[in-house]
């Protein structure tokens, strides 16, 4: 009798919580979309030169020119950066089975910078596209080397993997700096060392659009990345070609990163923090998290950019600085949470249903015992 009542209660709870979860699943995404739209509109009207709607509506050609060539370009570059870096981070974390791997800690960014330096050295007259190709090639090679290395040496400790990545990245960065000093390129290179959006203007940033098809490609192969992230045996069992998917995923992540570094410069932390924060709420199924990760990444970069533009207006701080400050704070927060709660997921407003689930678990355990 008792047991029946408990079972009924559990069934009721699980139905409720499942319906709730379905609604919530889309609710979070919709809220993120809404925030992003509002912030984007806001961002269009922040800047040294005031643009008001009246001028735009009146067909003021100068206002329109600033609006389209500068503000809109900047906004689009920011969105691509946020989406691209966070998705690149998500892919790399999944494929490397390590939550601390990202374009920064996986030597991708420093390799891309090295590629740009090579382009400046060997093809001084190179266009943006020429540099981009160098950056692509080096970023891909650097990331492959890093992953090949961590697969060769099976690290017991999860922290060792990003540490090796950081060291590897610093070695590449050191070589880049040495060459830059030797050939008096430091000035030219500095644009790509610290990420900023102030030089984003029509005609100089379009490469960053490459992130869009690459992110779509990542979405298409999301399930493959998930399966490869479960390990070699797991992939083989399901008929997925481990190495092919691994290298394709890394190539996509490296190309996304390189196309951003060429235009904006180095932006750290986003690829590390954004996927981790989203995963805490939504788990690791890429199909389920990639859209939220992209949206949250875009919002994060947009907010950082707006702070950078407002704090010391009419001057502006490079985005890398703001991202660094905010990012490290969030990262410390993440670490503290992990230390306190382990890998337990956060369920938004689901205190009741998770209690139900716990009760269900306990009851089932008892049922098994009986």
């Amino acid at each position, binding site marked *: 009798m008792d047991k029946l009542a408990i079972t009924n209660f*559990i069934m009721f709870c*699980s139905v409720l*919580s*499942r319906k709730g*979860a379905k609604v919530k699943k889309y609710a979070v995404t919709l809220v993120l979309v809404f925030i992003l739209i509002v912030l984007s509109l806001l961002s269009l009207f922040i800047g040294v030169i005031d643009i008001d709607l009246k001028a735009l509506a009146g067909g003021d050609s100068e206002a329109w020119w600033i609006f389209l060539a500068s503000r809109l370009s900047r906004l689009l570059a920011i969105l691509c950066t946020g989406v691209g870096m966070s998705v690149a981070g998500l892919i790399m974390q*999944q494929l490397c*089975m390590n939550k601390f791997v990202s374009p920064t800690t996986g030597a991708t960014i420093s390799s891309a910078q090295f590629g740009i330096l090579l382009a400046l050295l060997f093809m001084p007259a190179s266009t943006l596209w020429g540099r981009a190709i160098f950056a692509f090639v080096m970023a891909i090679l650097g990331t492959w080397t890093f992953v090949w290395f961590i697969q060769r040496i099976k690290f017991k400790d999860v922290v060792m993997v990003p540490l090796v990545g950081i060291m590897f990245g610093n070695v590449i960065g050191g070589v880049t700096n040495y060459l830059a000093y030797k050939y008096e390129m430091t000035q030219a290179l500095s644009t790509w060392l610290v990420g900023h959006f102030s030089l984003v203007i029509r005609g100089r940033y379009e490469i960053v659009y490459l992130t869009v098809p690459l992110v779509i490609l990542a979405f298409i192969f*999301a*399930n*493959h990345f*998930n*399966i490869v*992230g*479960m*390990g*070699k*045996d*797991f992939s*083989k*069992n*399901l*008929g*997925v*070609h481990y190495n092919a998917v691994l290298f394709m995923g890394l190539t996509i992540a490296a190309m996304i990163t390189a196309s951003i570094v060429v235009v904006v410069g180095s932006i750290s932390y986003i690829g590390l923090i954004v996927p981790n924060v989203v*995963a805490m709420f939504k*788990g*690791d*199924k890429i*199909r*389920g998290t990639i859209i939220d990760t992209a949206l949250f990444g875009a919002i994060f970069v947009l907010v950082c950019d707006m702070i950078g533009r407002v704090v010391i207006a009419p001057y502006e701080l490079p985005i890398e600085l703001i991202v660094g400050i905010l990012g490290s704070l969030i990262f410390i927060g993440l670490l503290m949470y992990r230390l306190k709660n382990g*890998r*337990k*997921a956060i369920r938004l407003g689901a205190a009741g249903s998770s209690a139900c*689930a716990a009760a*269900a*678990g306990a009851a*089932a*355990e008892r049922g*098994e*015992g009986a």
Partner: protein
Amino acid sequence: MEVRELTKKYDGKTVVDSVSFTIPKGKVISLIGPNGAGKSTVMGIISRLIARDSGLVAFEGQDISKWKSKELSKRLAILTQTNNIQMKLTVRELVTFGRFPYSGGHNTPEDEEIISRAIEYMELQEFEDRFIDELSGGQRQRAMIAMVIAQDTEHVLLDEPTNNLDIYHATNMMKIVRRLCDELGKTVILVLHEINYAAFYSDYICAFKDGRIAHFGPVKEVMTKEVLGDIYNVDFEIMEISGKPLSIYY
């Protein structure tokens, strides 16, 4: 499935030495033997996870390495150690992967139906939206089996499925293995350390020693003082309980 003259060397050391046997369909076959006897390596080779040096594994009349990976994954499922899953997936998401060889990630309503039935079969309905890393070892193991059921293969290979489980969950696991065979008609091949589980729950035992098959046959033929004593170099007594030969070693 037929295995002929299988050989595998690691660093010049022969770990599998011309192993040949035929796996009967629709039965539970346990591979036993001391550590390093080659049973896990043989399992790896017949499931195409490990490359062999020489020999042949014929699966449905065709060499296993000639099979298309995707086609093979609809016919043969392998589960290796499962305790190391770091990923935060819900039970249902994990089981959904079992349909991947069929759907490529785009599940039809029929796929969803198969997934639901697999979850029900493993009695995991209450847990289907919970993350696997929040479950107990036994529940997680059942979730993995549910995935294999969703994969809907005729052959199921399990590498030490009772490893790291307590007696209660390990026994449950073995009962599930039996059901996979009796109710779902699957051929189950498993590597086991616990001889008595092999004796009680399987139809055939394949005993390994030093990379060779010491004995392969129905349970009663293998579960003798002489055979077991020879394989493990330990004294055995065989007792009959519920009509099954069980061993005591000391």
